[in-house]
């Protein structure tokens, strides 16, 4: 008589909503794999919109929205999208989402729409969005893709907000339009014209990359 025992099949535990693996989708792009400072993508919009905090904030929220939903839609359709036309399908979906953002801003935040509409349109060509669709959403499940979109969006956002903070502060002495330099007693603060030009964005971005890489020890190979 066989003494073998048969192991009862154990039901595969479903992964926690924010497991260690999933947390990395959000935390990696914030620092170690940041889309702007490490992958050096999305630089054009980082230079163009970051003169002031307010439009930068709207741009950041718009990019996060577009990234999350384009990742979600592409992931849901990943088995149906024909491989030969996948790029044009991705573009069509991103362009639709961007147009939606633009239309909503036009209806409910007309002032910001006027300031940002050119740049919102440019989200379509933001390499970070297309990059994540191609590298992640086409091969992963919807929930993971949403987290990946959120992580990359946040990684992009914190960098452009940091750049905008320094550019607005040094360029005009203000933060979110509030006269910070005046409030802390520097009434004769001389605005630095370099900071409002795109060159200023390069300088600030360069400093952020320098500080970040000296801390993480990241080296380009």
């Amino acid at each position, binding site marked *: 008589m066989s003494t073998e025992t048969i192991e009862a099949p154990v039901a595969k535990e479903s992964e926690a909503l924010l497991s260690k693996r999933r947390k990395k989708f959000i935390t990696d792009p914030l620092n170690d794999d940041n889309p702007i400072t490490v992958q050096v993508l999305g630089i054009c919009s980082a230079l163009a919109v970051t003169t002031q905090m307010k439009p930068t904030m709207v741009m950041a929220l718009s990019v996060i929205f577009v990234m999350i939903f384009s990742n979600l839609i592409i992931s849901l359709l990943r088995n149906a999208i024909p491989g030969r036309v996948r790029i044009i399908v991705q573009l069509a979906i991103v362009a639709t989402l961007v147009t*939606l953002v633009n239309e909503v801003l036009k*209806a409910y935040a007309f002032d910001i729409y*006027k300031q940002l509409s050119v740049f919102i349109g440019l989200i379509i060509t933001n390499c970070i969005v297309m990059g994540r669709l191609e590298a992640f959403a086409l091969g992963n499940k919807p929930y993971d893709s949403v987290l990946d979109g959120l992580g990359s969006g946040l990684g992009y956002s914190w960098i452009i907000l940091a750049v905008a903070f320094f550019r607005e502060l040094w360029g005009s002495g203000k933060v979110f339009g509030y006269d910070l330099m005046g409030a802390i007693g520097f009434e004769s603060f001389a605005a630095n014209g370099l900071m*409002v030009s795109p060159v200023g964005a390069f300088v600030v971005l360069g400093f952020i990359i320098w500080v970040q890489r000296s801390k993480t020890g990241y080296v380009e190979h």
Partner: protein
Amino acid sequence: MQSNRYIIIFSLVLTAVLGGLLSGVSQVLGPTQKKAQDLDTKKQILGAIPAEKEALADMDAEAILARYAEVISSQVSDFQGNLVDTNEKGGRMIAEEVSIEKNYKKSIEDRMYPVFKYSANGNEAYILPVYGAGLWDAIWGFVAVNPDLKSVKGVSFDHKGETPGLGARITSDEIQARYRGKSLYDDNGNFVAITMVKGEKTPEDRLGPNKVDGLAGATLTANGVNDMLLNYINYYQKYFDKHVRGGAMTLNNQ
């Protein structure tokens, strides 16, 4: 690998779904967008008057529309200075609905020229739309001219795509305040408009009555503003000759 048939059907379905979604959203948001645009135009017209501009910041949409209806009256003139009452569709001509952008594509003689008259507490001004080309795209604005038709009460400028922090500064209060009280005519009585000089931080005594300080780093946008003012205000001369300099200030509420 999917068949060509599958790819074509997938593409058609995707196009139909996305196109339907966008047209639906456009239909739903259309009226709200039109209201937002209308409010924005009225804010810009009122904003050409410095005292009104300060008050605008604390007003909600309804208050702005009520204030506009109270202090602004408008009419539309053609290039010859004749008043125009009916629009192309045969309806009543409404000055606020005249698209300066569309008119700009027509020849100068065929354009419509709206005039907005501001009148509050004894203060009066003619607010004129102006339109031109900046460095990257269109620029436009409203210039409030005092009833003497010689000096400027205030301006409000806007743009489509000038560089943030450089040319886009024409929308800032600081830049627009420079135009207040400046003269459109030189000492000999010739129409010269107001010119923005090259370079910034020029002392006021070197600027004189026909010049304002420049935009550092945005000389080409400044040139666009100069051309816009010189050309567009000039187009209103026949209107002023007929209806204002002739004596009767005939602007009626429409």
